[in-house]
């Protein structure tokens, strides 16, 4: 009975979050957070793809912002310079990104650090190309006048409307990804992460699955990029600078790499932290953000969302105070141990010595 109640509690939490989320763009509620909400939605789409690729399949990508950039620019160029319907532009951008990711497939022969470096290089190359091909992309200044998306006569010309559009896409991608993870395909991906040799021995075509999930995550990023172009109207290479790729990985790690809803949580946490809270600390914001990140990684290496979820499943509704108490205990015993070690009462092996 308790379990059923907990499950119901989870659904009611989801309902409350959804209700609050729906209200965000209303001026009489939190109107000023519409832009923040849109950016969280867009980045969540990219981060979910990264979670599938990194957390579930175990393949690193430090260049994912590039696909966001491709989606953004292809959408912008087609719909502005060639007056293609924005929806069609978005579709073409997604297909082109998929083709690019497919062509990049051979880099998945690399593993671990080498793969990380190769994907980082991909990010740099695509970013630099966008900056250099200024006759198409407008160079470092970017280009402006990208049309809004519209359905029939209904144009998404206010951020209020685009908020719902973008979150519609985002939720669809979250659900699709959740379905994939808990399927035959998802098990194959996780198997590759667990042991490539064993996955292969069970009839799983390892390289094919790696490339497929890479393509899918690139398409997610491309869609987010296109939506951004048709939302912001102005695009420039700055929005997919290679450093953005690193931010994306940070968001994925903070939420929990091997967790779909963690992507949403991590993206939300990092955006709220950086854009709403730390922005008031002036030049020190990066430093504080970095320190917070280190603390999160030390105390919840599996990700904040995953840690909180586990605590909730273990301790029920009042998990938060218990969780903080536990973490506080861990931290203080760590400090105590250091102190005793420093005083010489505890050896390097953790054994107690005679005072």
């Amino acid at each position, binding site marked *: 009975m308790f379990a059923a109640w907990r499950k119901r509690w989870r659904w009611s939490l989801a309902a409350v979050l959804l209700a609050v989320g729906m209200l965000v763009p209303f001026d009489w509620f939190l109107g000023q957070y519409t832009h923040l909400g849109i950016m969280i939605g867009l980045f969540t789409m990219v981060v979910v793809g990264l979670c599938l690729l990194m957390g579930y399949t175990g393949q690193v990508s430090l260049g994912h912002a590039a696909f966001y950039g491709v989606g953004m620019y292809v959408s912008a160029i087609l719909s502005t310079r060639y007056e293609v319907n924005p929806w069609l532009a978005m579709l073409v951008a997604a297909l082109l990104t998929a083709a690019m990711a497919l062509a990049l497939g051979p880099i998945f022969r690399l593993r671990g650090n080498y793969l990380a470096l190769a994907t980082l290089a991909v990010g740099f190359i695509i970013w630099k190309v966008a900056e250099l091909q200024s006759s198409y992309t407008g160079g470092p200044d970017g280009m402006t006048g990208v049309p809004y998306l519209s359905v029939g006569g209904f144009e998404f010309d206010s951020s209020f409307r685009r908020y719902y559009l973008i979150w519609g896409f985002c939720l669809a991608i979250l659900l*699709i990804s959740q*379905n*994939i993870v808990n*399927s*035959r*395909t*998802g*098990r*194959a991906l*996780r*198997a590759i*992460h*667990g*042991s490539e*040799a*064993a*996955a*292969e*021995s*069970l*009839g*799983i*075509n*390892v390289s094919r699955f790696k490339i*497929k999930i890479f393509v*899918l995550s690139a398409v997610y990023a491309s869609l987010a990029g296109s939506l951004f172009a048709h939302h912001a109207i102005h695009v420039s290479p700055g929005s997919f600078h290679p450093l953005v790729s690193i931010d994306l990985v940070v968001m994925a790690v903070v939420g929990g790499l*091997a967790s779909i809803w963690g992507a949403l949580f991590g993206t939300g946490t990092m955006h709220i932290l950086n854009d709403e809270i730390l922005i008031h600390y002036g030049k020190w914001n990066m430093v504080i953000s970095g320190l917070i990140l280190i603390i999160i990684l030390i105390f919840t290496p599996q990700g904040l969302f995953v840690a909180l979820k586990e605590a909730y499943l273990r301790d029920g509704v009042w998990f938060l105070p218990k969780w903080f108490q536990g973490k506080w205990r861990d931290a203080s015993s760590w400090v105590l141990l250091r102190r005793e070690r420093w005083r010489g009462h505890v050896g390097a092996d953790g054994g107690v010595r005679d005072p």
Partner: protein
Amino acid sequence: MSEVVLELKGVSRAFGGLLAVDGVDLEIERGRITAIIGPNGAGKTTLFNLITGVYRPTAGDIRFQGKSIGSLSPDARAKRGIVRTFQHVYLFGNMSVLENVMTGVHPRSSYGFLEAALRLPKARREEEEIHLRAMKYLNMVGLGAQAQQNALSLPLGQQKLLAIARALATDPVLILLDEPGAGLNRLEKAELSDLIRRIRELGITVVLVEHDMPLVMGLAEWVIVLDAGKKIAEGPPAEVQKDRKVIAAYLGEEEEGGP
């Protein structure tokens, strides 16, 4: 009467200048438990890797059910019915016990990304079947009660049984077990022998590499002995045990009149 399911003809594999497997001919008969033994470094695991496709032979031909498979990838061979377990178990630590076995059903199911993403009827139907099949094999190795645990939370003995269940879930023709008894206690070894006999009763051909001689001699119906990459003897266990070359390989090279 007897039918050969796997045949190796003059198979060699060189690593640099070293011939790890040197012109091995062997035939595995359908429905029999065959053991491959030999001192350390004899090439037993390399032979497994050649049969399952991890390595390609540098010379010779491997035929499975009458067809040459020497150039196929490991996953293609698994689809044709050759499956293996590993010395180091290699369970998927990011999954539950049940999910590990469900992963084994991969080559015997077919729905893909799209069906999974949209949860189409085909996906649901197959998923139900996959679940049933996985539970069947979990129960067969006696791990039904641990289905929801994390795979790596099991003790080593049960981890090895889980790896076997996972391999069986691929519905193989031939199963290769790489040192299934290593690290097990006497009771667990008895259970393992019993399980291997039950696998044979399913009509699956079993080949095992094993160091534990009592286990091999009690279980195998045919024993193949490798030494330094070459096959030096084969036959029923009782005969192989008496073979002078085998004794020499295990105890040291003193064939022609000792000191």
